[in-house]
């Protein structure tokens, strides 16, 4: 047997796109069925969580969001109900259409239909049977009204009363009593329905394909297990068929009664010795109270006379029918009373109960909060945006670029100077932080502020100091010039840059705009032809042009301090070279003359210690630039290292270097803070006088930071400047600590550097750790 109209209705609704937002019991069953299925999947493969989340979120976004968002805010029970209902619809729609009538919900609904029908039919039949049995009239003895009333009215009424009482009781005491009170429903009707549902499913499965059959069979158990989860909601589907049975029973009884009354001749009577007709009349009147307004005495209920007339006296019947002739009207007077009594006390309460059950079911369904664990999990899945931080597996990109070797005696213009060819706009304060952190020894500290301070006040005093400068210059400068002349062309950009600087930094000099052109000649003259007469010449033009006066003057003034300072450096061999160079870079704004002048004397001074240590043959005067003894090297210290080094570390640095290479420090220079500094370093290298070729370079770098192109490029530049065979050492130190500013490098970082240095394929470049690695636990 099957109920095509039900599934047809469902299909119709589906096709019309009717999205019901009300829940029915079969919806709940399907809902639970799907939840259980999802749960199963999750249990078996937790990885499916993502798929489920995506599916549910998609359902939510597709269907629920528009409809639900308009009615209620998320996390309210209304929203939850509607959203979940939409979800269910979506799930059902995504189901194989052949399977949809086999869903447990549909099966249950069909079963309920079937059950109701069976109950109704049987109720009707039983009612009819009971009524006809009670109304069997043989034409002799009238039908006993009291038994009819007792069975069809009183008993039924009592049943209804008990049902109401239990309901009330249940609603008062809630949950715990349900099971006990609903015994009949739970133990009789529920298994019945379940059986029916299973039977139905089996009937349909007979025609279904194997896999659908398998799936559907697997769900059968669910019907039973999920039945009680929704409390009262699970109870009503059972109650309603029960009420249906009651209604049908009454209808059967009433229709039979009416039928018999209309088409057969029935005589009603009552017989009791204990009751006086008046009592019976009172009783009847009382019973008829509900309808006495419509159907009054004589119609709705018999009159006293009729009652008296319909009393059955056993002796009369016994003695013989002919003697006693009761009024047939009196005997018939009960008939409508009986019908009305059954209608009022049998049918009506049942109808009320049925309506109530249906209403209560609706109410219970409407009150469902869907807060049990599984549905909440689903709801959360629906509401939670899918957060995807896509797990693309990274493809390894190109390795860090290793700069190619540069041609000897060339420089990468791009990196040495500003990368652009623009010259008119000077870079503003290149490295403000550099000025603020004077880490070099004291003399430098004095030196640095001077140029800055001097620039502004001294323009006025300018003319006078000039002569002394000239006096000082001769010794060192004369020797230096030739070299500088040779090398100057190599650094055009450098010069340009420095020209650009003065106007910006020394703003007090209003004449800044006119300066560059003026200075250029000066510079060249100073740099290239530095002998005294030339210097004087160079000074003269400024004298003529007052505006330009100031800058040359400053330079001259500054010379004094530097010159004064020089003597001490001679005594302290190592610190000074560094000291001298550092200031040079910072006061870049100053006009070149100073810088050029300063650097050269310094270099010479730097030579002196070396010379002292090796050969006292004082050749500085003869040497044009830094002189490197056969075992002396040019030490290049990265600013990061230089910044943290303190005076007592320098001897140690020298010592470590000596241990590592056997080299003395011929001169030292910093690098790493900009192209100007690099240019300076290269300059010194190129001007170096190497007693023994090839040149020796020691580069000290903080190896705790991984190598970058910039570092390698610097090495390439050094190589280009120093020549292919120059011995280069790259000595790495670890991250400076407080107690040890030249700590050993961690092996891990070392290999990192090594890998890159190896790639440079420079056979004369050696990579070492400056300090020997600590013996404990090196990996």
């Amino acid at each position, binding site marked *: 047997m099957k109920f095509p109209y039900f599934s047809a209705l469902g299909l119709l609704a589906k096709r019309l796109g009717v999205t019901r937002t009300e829940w029915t019991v079969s919806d709940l069953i399907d809902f639970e069925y799907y939840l259980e299925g999802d749960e199963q999947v999750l249990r078996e493969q*937790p990885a499916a*969580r993502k798929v489920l989340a995506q599916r549910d*979120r998609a359902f939510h976004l597709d269907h629920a969001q528009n409809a639900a968002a308009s009615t209620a805010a998320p996390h309210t029970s209304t929203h939850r109900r509607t959203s979940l209902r939409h979800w269910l619809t979506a799930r059902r729609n995504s189901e194989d259409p052949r399977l949809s009538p086999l869903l447990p919900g549909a099966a249950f609904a069909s079963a309920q239909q079937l059950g109701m029908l069976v109950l109704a039919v049987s109720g009707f039949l039983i009612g009819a049977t009971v009524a006809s049995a009670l109304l069997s009239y043989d034409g002799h003895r009238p039908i006993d009204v009291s038994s009819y009333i007792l069975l069809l009215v009183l008993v039924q009424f009592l049943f209804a009363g008990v049902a109401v009482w239990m309901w009330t009781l249940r609603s008062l005491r809630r949950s715990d009593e349900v099971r006990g009170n609903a015994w009949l429903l739970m133990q009789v009707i529920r298994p019945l329905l379940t059986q029916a549902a299973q039977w139905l499913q089996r009937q349909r499965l007979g025609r279904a394909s194997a896999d659908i059959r398998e799936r559907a069979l697997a769900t059968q158990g669910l019907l039973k297990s999920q039945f009680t989860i929704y409390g009262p909601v699970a109870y009503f589907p059972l109650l309603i068929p029960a009420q249906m049975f009651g209604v049908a029973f009454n209808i059967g009884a009433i229709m039979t009664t009416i039928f018999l009354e209309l088409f057969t001749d029935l005589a009603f009577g009552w017989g009791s010795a204990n009751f006086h007709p008046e009592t019976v009349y009172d009783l009847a009147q009382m019973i008829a109270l509900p309808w006495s307004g419509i159907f009054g005495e004589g119609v709705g209920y018999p009159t006293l006379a009729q009652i008296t007339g319909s009393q059955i006296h056993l002796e009369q019947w016994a003695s013989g029918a002919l003697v006693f002739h009761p009024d047939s009207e009196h005997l018939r007077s009960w008939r409508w009373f009986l019908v009305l009594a059954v209608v009022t006390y049998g049918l009506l309460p049942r109808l009320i109960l049925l309506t109530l059950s249906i209403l209560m079911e609706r109410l219970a369904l409407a009150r469902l909060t869907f*807060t*049990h*664990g599984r549905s909440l*999990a689903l709801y*959360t899945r629906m*509401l*939670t*945006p*899918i*957060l*995807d*931080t*896509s*797990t*693309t*597996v*990274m493809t390894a*990109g*190109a*390795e*860090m*670029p290793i*700069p190619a070797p540069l041609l000897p005696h060339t420089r990468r213009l*791009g*990196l040495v*100077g*500003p*990368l*652009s060819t*623009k010259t008119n*706009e000077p*870079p*503003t304060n*290149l*490295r403000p*932080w550099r000025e603020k952190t004077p880490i070099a020894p004291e003399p430098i500290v004095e030196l640095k502020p001077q140029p800055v301070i001097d620039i502004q006040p001294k323009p006025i005093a300018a003319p006078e100091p000039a002569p002394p400068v000239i006096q000082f210059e001769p010794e060192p400068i004369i020797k230096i010039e030739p070299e500088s002349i040779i090398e100057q062309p190599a650094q055009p950009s450098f010069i340009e840059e420095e020209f650009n600087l003065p106007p910006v930094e020394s703003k007090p000099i209003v004449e800044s705009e006119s300066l560059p052109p003026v200075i250029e000649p000066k510079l060249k003259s100073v740099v290239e032809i530095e002998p005294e007469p030339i210097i004087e010449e160079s000074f003269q033009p400024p004298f003529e042009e007052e505006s330009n006066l100031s800058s040359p003057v400053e330079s001259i003034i500054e010379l004094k301090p530097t010159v004064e300072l020089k003597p001490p450096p001679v005594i302290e061999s190592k610190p000074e070279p560094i000291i001298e160079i550092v200031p040079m870079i910072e006061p870049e704004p100053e006009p070149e003359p100073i810088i050029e002048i300063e650097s050269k004397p310094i270099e010479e001074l730097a030579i002196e210690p070396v010379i002292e240590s090796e050969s006292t043959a004082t050749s500085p005067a003869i040497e044009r630039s830094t002189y490197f003894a056969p075992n002396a090297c040019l030490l290049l210290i*990265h600013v*990061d290292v230089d*910044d*943290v080094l303190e005076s007592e570390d320098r001897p140690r640095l020298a010592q470590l270097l000596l241990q590592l290479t056997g080299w003395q420090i011929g001169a030292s220079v910093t690098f*790493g*803070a*900009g*192209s100007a500094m690099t240019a300076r370093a290269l300059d010194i290298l190129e001007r170096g006088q190497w007693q023994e070729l090839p040149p020796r370079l020691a580069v000290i770098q*903080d190896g*705790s*930071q*991984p*190598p*970058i*192109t*910039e570092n390698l*490029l610097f090495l390439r530049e050094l190589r280009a400047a120093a020549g292919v065979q120059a011995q280069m050492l790259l000595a790495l130190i670890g*991250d*400076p600590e407080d107690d040890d500013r030249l700590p050993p490098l961690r092996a*891990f970082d070392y290999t*990192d550097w090594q890998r890159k240095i190896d790639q440079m394929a420079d056979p004369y470049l050696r990579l070492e750790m400056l300090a020997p690695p600590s013996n404990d636990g090196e990996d």
Partner: protein
Amino acid sequence: MAVKIPRLAIMGHPNAGKSSVVATLTENDQVAIDKRAGTTTESDVYPVVIDGVTVIEFIDTPGFQNPNAILEWFQANLDTRDLARAFVMAHRADPLFAHDCALLEPVAEGAGIILVVDGSKRIKEKDRVEIELLRLTARPRMAILNNLTNQDRYMSQWQDALSKAFNSVREFNAHRATYSERIKLLEALKSIDQRWEALLENAIDAFKKDWERRTDQAVGAIIDLLKDALSYRVSKTVKDNKIVFKSGRDRVKAELMTEFENGLRHMEIAAQAQIRTHFRHNVWNVASDSILNQDLLSNEVGEALGLSRRQLALVGMAAGAASGVAIDLATAGSSLGSGAFFGAAAGGVLGMVGGRVLAKFDIERAPGTHRFTVGPVTNPRFPFILLDRSILYSARAMNWAHGRQAAEEDAPNRVPEKVIDKRGFTEELSSAEQRELARFFSAARRGRDLEREDLCRTVIKNVLRGVALSEIDSRGDL
């Protein structure tokens, strides 16, 4: 979409921990993090996609290779309107600047900047250069002080240097960042460009909800584990002739007990795997001395977790379940001729938790056979221990930053572990909550339909939430 989605380029020089930050922010431990320098050599985009719509993009950039040159170029071209774009345009062809172009490209295209610096190191020249050149790009920017160590002497210097050039500066340990810290960091991103506020809000909300869901799932996994473990039983039918001798009987018991215990262990492992998946961990390593690496039924675990004896007694009495447990215990003792059982127990830790019998042991006699059954768990301590361990595991999963995979646990300056506080999570619950749990456990033991489940769910969820928000110590040391 009116507003362009926030794109954030994570910058910094090699090895500053950029990739760790991205991994942690996006909870993606598939981000390749290598201890070697310059691992990230291309700008990899890590979008945060909500319901198929990208709301934020994090771009993991390679490190600067030529910061000095870039700065000087910038300084020489200050009048150029869009420095980053101009630089990229000018140097695209130069292989030496390949990385620099790659990392400036997103900036040129309008991405905001998150500079990641290693706060444990002193500020180097390169750092200053990078700070300055990023300042010159004039993009919305934020700095993250990634400090993986407890070396904080340079932190204030960094703060000073960074705050001059960045809209906001945040400290963030990519290896220890918890959920709440991550959310705070995302919140901070709002401040660097106001136009992003709505979208970021959206993303944060999604992150929060996602987190909520995960917590729920973890709680669900824990509850299921408890239910399964507490109603677990193992039985075996043995023919009479196999157990004529006591030794045979003992062997059967021992086997059964082992099977039972292993069953419990497997359940826990399965649940842990679930929890781990929920929190998106593909890579996972727990310190070898962690209590999570100890055997579930070992004494160490029993001592470290669960309720104290006193609490247990109180809870047991109040829950009314204790009577049942007591009877179970009594029968467990008697039904198997106590001597043998305790003999076995004394031989090892088998079957004992916190000094008490783990589970009920039953023998049913049938003609010709004996049916041995172990389970369900009767030990009143065990469920608390199991719960504690699950919470501990979840806490670890929640607070295990995704960028931590490459963390060098043996690095010299790592954060020292806290003083060990050997207290379980359940021990700190209120006694009402403990009672509630105990009731739930006793219901679970009997395999009842569990009305207490929801309450317990709430209790456990509150603990996990507390852990996530750092209100409850996550016991990272256990």
